[in-house]
């Protein structure tokens, strides 16, 4: 398989000056011109896949092309394979891909949560592995949740025992996004005592191919292997693979969550707007053929669109704050709640308005809406459930009296 052609710009000409680093509008304009005129990109438009594995692999090819064209290197530092710039460049990339009717490549979703944390807390690991990630040659999974540690992440038990210049991992992770195909797993593990809660945690990068790692895909109700469970049976990992210091895992996870709640929200809003355009097209086709819509369809469509605009407005503010080097605290939970509202709202709307097409349609578009509907349910569960987000807001933003401890 081949990726899209490069920009055709003689390599090095733009490299020296790199006006895009400081001129976001110029970057946006050039990117838009490329995405809307490059014919080799058409294979990723309206494309449906039979499996998640096939989809990720094909998206990785798109990533490789974006890398060769230098487009997805802005927003990442040179030391890690980037060309400079800040998170706004990445946000523009995701938005312009969606506006051009293209997918945000799947690996970019996890890259946005793990990439900034690895850059910040393990620059040498970022230098070693991020370039390959950006080229689409490898991607990572995020190993946080466990069977006994979902919302209560600090209860996790997967253990890493220090043994000389390495750690020995034993335990289990669950609900690992992209876990079934990832090259590396960035895992939150316990290095302290079992009772140490969030103080005794560390973040470590594990090769999925390391001896003792067993990965079993977990199929969503749609049949798609979006997630995986991972077993570690005395897996040896060099101590140099720590992301942050031993015992600093919780701080790394909290840093990472800023991006997961902000940039992921922006990505989701960009994709949601593309999907709303596609839904609109399907509904217009139906109306043109003399079909009807259920009661309240227009009002709900208007409301859903307004929710997506709101999510764009809020997450854009947060991305700008991250780009300006400001820490985003507990108020990022607002972004997450708005994300879940837009995401579940859009897919419920598609389900209700497409009606029998959604339920029984054989066309690839119908299958896509069904799979996406199931995945949209995760918006109120993964990365901190809807309930966790509301509790964070109640505790830390509204300053309400705390709930009594059990």
């Amino acid at each position, binding site marked *: 398989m081949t990726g899209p052609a490069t920009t055709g710009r003689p390599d090095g000409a733009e490299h020296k000056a790199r006006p895009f680093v400081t001129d976001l509008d110029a970057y946006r304009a050039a990117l838009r011109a490329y995405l809307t005129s490059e014919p080799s990109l058409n294979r990723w438009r309206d494309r449906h896949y039979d499996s998640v594995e096939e989809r990720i692999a094909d998206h990785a090819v798109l990533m490789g092309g974006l890398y060769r064209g230098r487009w997805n290197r802005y927003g990442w530092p040179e030391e890690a394979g980037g060309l400079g710039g800040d998170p706004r460049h990445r946000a523009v990339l995701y938005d312009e891909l969606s506006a051009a009717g293209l997918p945000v490549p799947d690996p970019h979703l996890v890259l946005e949560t793990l990439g900034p944390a690895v850059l910040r807390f393990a620059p040498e690991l970022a230098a070693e592995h991020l370039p390959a990630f950006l080229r689409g040659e490898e991607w990572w999974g995020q190993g946080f949740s466990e069977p006994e540690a979902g919302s209560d992440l600090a209860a996790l038990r997967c253990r890493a025992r220090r043994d000389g210049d390495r750690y020995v991992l034993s335990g289990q992770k669950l609900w690992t996004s992209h876990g079934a195909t990832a090259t590396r797993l960035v895992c939150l593990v316990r290095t302290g005592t079992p009772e140490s809660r969030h103080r005794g945690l560390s973040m470590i990068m594990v090769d999925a191919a390391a001896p003792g790692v067993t990965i079993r895909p977990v199929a969503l109700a749609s049949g798609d292997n979006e997630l995986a469970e991972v077993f570690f049976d005395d897996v040896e990992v060099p101590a140099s693979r720590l992301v942050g210091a031993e015992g600093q895992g919780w701080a790394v996870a909290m840093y990472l969550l800023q991006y997961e709640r902000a940039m992921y929200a922006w990505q989701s809003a960009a994709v949601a707007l593309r999907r709303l*355009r596609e839904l609109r097209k399907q509904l217009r086709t139906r109306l043109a053929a003399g079909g009807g819509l259920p009661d309240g369809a*227009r009002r709900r469509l*208007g409301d859903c669109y307004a929710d997506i605009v709101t999510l764009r407005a809020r997450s854009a503010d947060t991305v700008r704050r991250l780009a300006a080097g400001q820490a985003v605290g507990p108020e990022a939970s607002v972004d997450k709640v708005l994300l879940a509202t837009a995401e579940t709202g859009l897919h419920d709307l598609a389900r209700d308005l497409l009606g029998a097409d959604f339920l029984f349609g054989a066309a690839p578009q119908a299958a896509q809406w069904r799979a996406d509907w199931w995945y949209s349910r995760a918006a109120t569960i993964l990365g901190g459930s809807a*309930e966790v987000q509301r509790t964070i807001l109640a505790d830390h933003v509204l300053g309400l009296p705390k709930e009594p401890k059990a």
Partner: protein
Amino acid sequence: MTTALTTGSGLDAETRELLAGSLRELLAAHTDAASIAAALAELGWDEVWAGDPATATTLLFTEHGRALATSRVLDDVLLAELAPALPAPTGPRAVLYPHPADKGDLVACGAPLRGLLLGRLDGVAEVVVPAVDADSAVLLVVPAAKFADATAPTGGFDPQSGWLAVARGPVPDGISPVRAADAWTRAQAAGRRALATEIAGVCEAALALATAHTAARWQYGRPIASFQAVRHRLAEAHVAVVAARTTVEAAWAMAGEPDGGAWAARIAKLRAGRAQADVLRHTVQVLGAMSLTLESEMHRFVTRAAALDALLGDHLSLAEATGTELLTGTEPHPVVEI
């Protein structure tokens, strides 16, 4: 695109806080439209406004909402957009707003006038009326005296609004309509941004009341705000307020467009209208029976927010109109860029 928030670009944070404090004092001390207008003039509000309309509008309408104030400051917002299209005024002007029962339809030229006034017409010389003539918006400048016997207090859900209804007003004979569809579009957009901000102010005050009440009210041996069901309702209310605020800020970023950022302003009004429904549902519940009585202020937030929602398009109508346009032609506009 600018990276700074438009509402923060003109005045620094300290100045904004000072101005907000002055406005709070002003609205506490003055309760009728005429004295609020006079006090704002004394404060030099016109200069603040001219220097940074986004910040000035945000500050004034936020405090106006929090204080549940009644005045004609919204008229000023619309008239600033309408004035360039109109002949020189013969005296102070007011605006006749489309009647909420007409669901966004403007009154037809030649028909008896209908709509809402924000207050009594004492000292007002002319009333500017948006109307429709041959499918196009026009403006009628009607002498205020013609409304002499045509107004009645709106009463109803929010008896303290001070608004007047014109149910079957004068037929504007001999008044030539001014073709001003663009000016009306811009005026409506500006009015919607101001109203969305005012609704957010009402919601913030209601949420503050609910937060304070639930932290102080004990049941089962602990503050009711320590119960998850109550905490989560208040968290959702907070999210709704932030959503409304953020969307109106995004709408300000488009106010410089030739149509005054009409599309984004409508989305902001829709979002704020929905926020008031959500926020007040939660705040009424957590205050318990108290919220249903005249002893608590909560009912005033409920009714004022509902009245403000109805002005220049309630959230249900705006959502319906937006959805209809999305289906019939308009591509979903991204509104916000990074």
